[in-house]
């Protein structure tokens, strides 16, 4: 009976689920930013698409191929936007693991990670919409473009311009809180005296 009990306990120990903290630590160590070839791949392939798309668009007389090259221009800009997001975004698992390991700094670290995520999304949207608006207006007004396509490009350029305005001025709550600039009254201790004044804080 003891032997059976010992075997059962041993088998439960072998198959037992690892602790949540251990699991999180493993994920934190594994889940670094992943790339297929290298960290610049999205920016390089996006930039190439942007260049090839523009050379092709202004080099062809065919309206079908113009639309196809316009698609490549758009893909290039979207990939550059993805590259910007990948550059700025935090690695969630690592940050959450560090927050749990150091409970004193946890609130600040959690706010920071959400703020970084929001900032990465906003900057990606801002840059890609700016480039898309410029690209579509250039397609509409430079080069030999059909009138029907000109209207489509002007409309798409306008839509992206509105998105640029939104992404420039609107910050979500975590980003607004963490990256906000603020002035506070402060008292500084000098050598022999105290000096009262205002301090300006800016987070990057």
């Amino acid at each position, binding site marked *: 009976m003891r032997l059976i009990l010992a075997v059962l306990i041993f088998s439960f120990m072998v198959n037992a689920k690892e602790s949540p903290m251990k699991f999180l630590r493993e994920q934190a160590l594994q889940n670094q930013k992943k790339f297929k*070839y290298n960290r610049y791949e999205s920016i390089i392939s996006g930039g190439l698409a942007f260049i090839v798309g523009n050379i092709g668009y202004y080099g062809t007389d065919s309206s079908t*191929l113009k639309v196809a090259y316009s698609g490549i221009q758009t893909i290039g800009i979207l990939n550059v936007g993805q590259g910007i997001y990948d550059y700025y975004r935090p690695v969630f698992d690592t940050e959450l693991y560090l927050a749990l390991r150091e409970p004193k700094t946890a609130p600040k670290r959690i706010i920071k990670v959400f703020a970084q995520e929001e900032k990465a999304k906003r900057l990606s949207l801002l840059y890609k919409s700016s480039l898309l608006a410029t690209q579509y207006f250039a397609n509409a007004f430079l080069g030999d473009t059909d009138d029907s396509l000109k209207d489509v490009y002007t409309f798409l350029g306008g839509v992206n311009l509105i998105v640029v305005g939104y992404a420039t001025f609107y910050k979500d709550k975590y980003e607004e809180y963490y990256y906000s600039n603020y002035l506070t009254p402060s008292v500084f201790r000098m050598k022999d005296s105290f000096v009262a004044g205002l301090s300006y804080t800016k987070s990057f």
Partner: protein
Amino acid sequence: MNKTLVLFLLWGFSQIALCHPLTTIIKPRYGINQVGTQDTCGIFFGRRNSVLCNPANLSLNSEEGLVFSLISKTDGDSVEAGQDVLFSPIDKEFLEDLFELNSFNSWEAGSMLEFQTPFFYLSYEPVYAQAAFFIFNPASPEISLTTSKQRKINLTVAEQIKLGSHEYHFGLNTFYYERDYFSGSFSLFELSSSSVDELVDLKASSAINADLGVIYQNKSIRWLPSLSLQYKNFGAKHEVNSERLKDEKALEPILLYETFFKAEFGYDFKMYYGSLAAAVGIYTDKDIATYYSDFTTLSLGYSLWNFEVLGSYSLYTHTAGIKFSSSANSVGIVYGRTKALGDFLDDYEDFAIVNLEIYL
């Protein structure tokens, strides 16, 4: 080993096909990778479309999702005339008009809805269409016309076996198709004496066929090339009309609907700056008795994240293309030159093919 090599070379040099076929650039179940490499992309591993190059690639590919794709030959008078053959009602006036066009005209296009999981791959082609015609002997005009429309549903499964450092991947693509097909010739004078239905008799057919694929790779011996073998359209009743292949005034599509064998070997190097692949593809008939040497193809592909460059060379067709993808869609463009009728046509036809994929 040496004996085998000598026998293979003797077979290769002695079995050169004496035919003058029509080559189609876009075939059923094609994406831009197939067009850009003339379907010599079986060992281009890790690309999204690799399962279309060889069904065995499914066991090497972990991608999943729903994709709608559209591929079409674009531009030129040749394309417009080809589209008219497929989409205009074929009557006497229309056929008479064809005799006034360029000597060779063709158009091809396909669309596909693909659902891929790591376990199976399901695709539906609502329409694949090709049309081509050639006008022989302007003094007494005779037209050779081939046209087909097809819809098809495919189910692909694959499995891999590892024996030490040897990796074998086996794939099976089973498909059901419904097709209207015509390949024939008639003269301008026959138009006055016969009805259009007699001259252009579209034959309807439907059946279940399969593509069988095997891939071999050995990652520990770097100099050993990877190998891709395919038996295409296994069980097909469609036969290439050998009389028309020998006829000097006939178009006959080849390597399209009939059963044939395809072998590829080459290398796919994964580097810090992307993935570079090169392959050689050879085709034979279903009995592996006739080697279609005219269609032996050399292909190259370079891939970096969502960017691909493709190129290929065969005796009558040369292609160069690019493909760019984002998380939502991809656009591919291939430029090429082809002698669609081989040595029968002195001039090369320039073409451009556009592929759009939307990731749903």
